[in-house]
């Protein structure tokens, strides 16, 4: 069953058509990757999906409900979470608070409970903390224990990427949107990220991710969409897409396959 339906989505900035008549759908439990050269409009697709930018035309259905025109936080509350290509952590907050803050959409204790610290509030707070610890322990020993109370700016680059994913997980999403999760990582870390994405699917998340690094894409994608100038130029299994002539042309401008090794 399709968790996400994107129907004839278009977006332009000024005179530039960034996303052009894009349609695709995403099934539950699937890993879909979107590839494309720089400026192909990949990040914009994510921005449209999460409500940061409104589309000019077209429709997006998430779990059968149209989410066009909703605020980003409302969309997140429905079960869609994302990470950013340029990391956007809450740098001066502690690591665990970064994750705990993302529990906002599915917690609901109001001002009264907060001020009087009712038992309901304490229970909820304990749940949030447990959830945050669980999300963080997903990455092994790296982000747990004494690190909980360290400020996020103290983390290394790779750990920041992991923290972003943990933060997104804390919103209890059904669909995770990852924007170039392996950007800036060394080969070893990239490999690890690839495995992680696989594990995420095993935990029941549906995943849509954008990636440059073909090693990541090839390893785990169920399906791949290639974008160029905001248009879908190919869709299918990894193999099908990378062998598609238009894709090769878009990437290299000549007919030569370089990704056949996988």
């Amino acid at each position: 069953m399709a968790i996400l339906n994107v129907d004839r989505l278009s977006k332009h900035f000024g005179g530039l058509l960034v996303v052009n008549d894009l349609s695709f759908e995403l099934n539950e439990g699937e890993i879909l990757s979107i590839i494309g050269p720089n400026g192909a409009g990949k990040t914009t697709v994510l921005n449209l999906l999460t409500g940061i930018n409104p589309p000019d035309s077209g429709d997006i259905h998430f779990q059968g409900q149209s989410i066009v025109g909703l605020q980003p936080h409302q969309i997140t509350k429905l079960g869609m979470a994302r990470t950013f290509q340029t990391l956007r952590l809450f740098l001066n907050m502690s690591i665990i608070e970064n994750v705990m803050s993302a529990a906002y959409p599915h917690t609901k204790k109001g001002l009264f409970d907060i001020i009087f610290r009712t038992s309901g509030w304490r229970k909820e707070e304990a749940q949030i903390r447990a959830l945050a610890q669980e999300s963080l322990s997903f990455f092994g020993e790296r982000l747990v224990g004494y690190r909980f109370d360290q400020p996020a700016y103290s983390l290394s680059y790779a750990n920041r990427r992991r923290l972003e994913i943990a933060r997104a997980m804390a919103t209890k999403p059904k669909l995770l949107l990852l924007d170039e999760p392996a950007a800036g990582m060394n080969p070893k870390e990239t490999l690890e990220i690839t495995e992680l994405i696989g594990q995420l699917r095993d935990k029941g998340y549906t995943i849509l991710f954008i990636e440059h690094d073909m090693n990541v894409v090839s390893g785990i994608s169920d399906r791949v969409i290639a974008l160029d100038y905001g248009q879908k130029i190919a869709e299918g299994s990894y193999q099908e897409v990378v062998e598609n002539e238009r894709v090769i042309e878009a990437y290299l401008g000549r007919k030569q396959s370089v990704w056949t090794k996988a």
Partner: protein
Amino acid sequence: MSVEKNTQPTNPESESSGDPRTGASPRAGDSPRIGVDEWVAQADERKQARSGFWGTIANRWETIPVFWRIGFVAFILILAPIVTNTTPVLSLLDISNNDFMVRVGATFLAFSILAIGLNVVVGYAGLLDLGYVAFFGLASYGYAYLSSDFIGAGVHVPYFISIPVVVAFTALVGYLLGSLAIRLYGDYLAIVTLGFGLLFFQLAQTLTRVRFFWLERPVDLTRGPNGINNLDAIPLITSRIEESIAYGYIYLFGSTFTPTIKYYFLFLIMLGLVVLVVHHMNQSRLGRGWRAMREDDLAAEVMGIPVRHLKLMAFATGAGIAALAGATFAAWQGNVVPIRYNVLALINLYAMVVLGGLGSLPGVIIGAFIYTLLPEILRNVVYATTLFYVGGLIGLVAWLEPSKRLVMVLGGTFLAGLLLKFLVNLLWPGFDTGVAPTEGFFLNQWAQSWLIIPANFTTAGNLAIGAGIAALLATVSIKNWWRYVFLGLTIYLFGFAWETRLAVEPSVTRILVVGASLVVLMITRPQGLLGKLRVEIL
């Protein structure tokens, strides 16, 4: 104090919690480095910053459980006005009653509450709200309308109705203003709210003859600069137990208190409640949401935090707290006057919050404490003189550290001064005959027996101020040994300026000293006394 913390390199103490210290390196700069595991790297340094006399106290202090710490401070604040009213303390301070100190204390508490409200908006939510005093004022005027003779024959709504009404109304106005201003980011938000604050002050000054179309005669809404007088007092604290039972007043054991002390305790109770409420708000999903959006409001929004809603919550909370303080303050003073809500008041509040450290509740309270107390201490010429000379000495020690250089500079300046005085008296007898009008305090006398004071010293003193500032700037900017010459010159010139001009006009000097110390503090410790240095770049 801040100066000391930054300039005391001593042996690192070992950290007790057993954290793995991977890259313990000496501090490279004031801003945390990105990419390195800063927290771990800074462990030693954080400990280092806490040595010396004050550092030891701070470390000891932190070993006490939070509950007892708060209890200790509360205990002191509760006992303070009672202790100062005893004969030994009064005679020690050479005063006949403690009303003055209690009034300053109550002002401090009221401003703490206001500063905490501002801290919610600026420190937690990161919204630069420069219209904050307008809420303070709005609530005061609201209270004045509801609980005084102002409207018609006098609407005397009891305080337990009028204050909640006023607080709710002001919070609503905060919410509405917020929803207007929220479209703007950063400095633009600041400017629009500043415009709102100035507008409020102007209207409070001038809305004395407003023509409503359904009324024949113009209406006086604010009584202009004179303000509205004779507001109802809040009869909240009583020393009679039957009143306490009958009206629900707070009963305080049998002593008879002056109104000022009653309001002191009222403000203290309110401060306690506000601190509790704000602390709880901050330590919850709400506070995390605020901090998240202060860090990065787009990321916060995408993480499912309703940023717009939280911003408005912050505005409304800040306005509500300001309103609580505003209505009570007006009831205490018995009047509302526009001048209380001018830009100066705003600047004072901001100075308190920034001085203590944005986002830190104890910091904000300490900021309010210092900022209310320091100007009051400086009103007294003797205290101001002591602060000037001793503070200057401490500053020198902190800057140069106890060293040969310091001794040489001080000794050299002292000898040069004596030599100069000797020469002048030798060559122009009758020149050094001025007697600066000070109260015969021994520090002044020492200084004047060392400085050359001409008979007509006013102009010379004015010039010395200018020359002293120039010498100070030269001292700071020159790097070679000449700086010590300029330093000596600076000391001499400022000593002269103090004796001839600054001590003569304590009211102006007060502002100069407060201003100069704030600028210096900002430069040496931009994050405030208890604030944390934040990383602002990605």
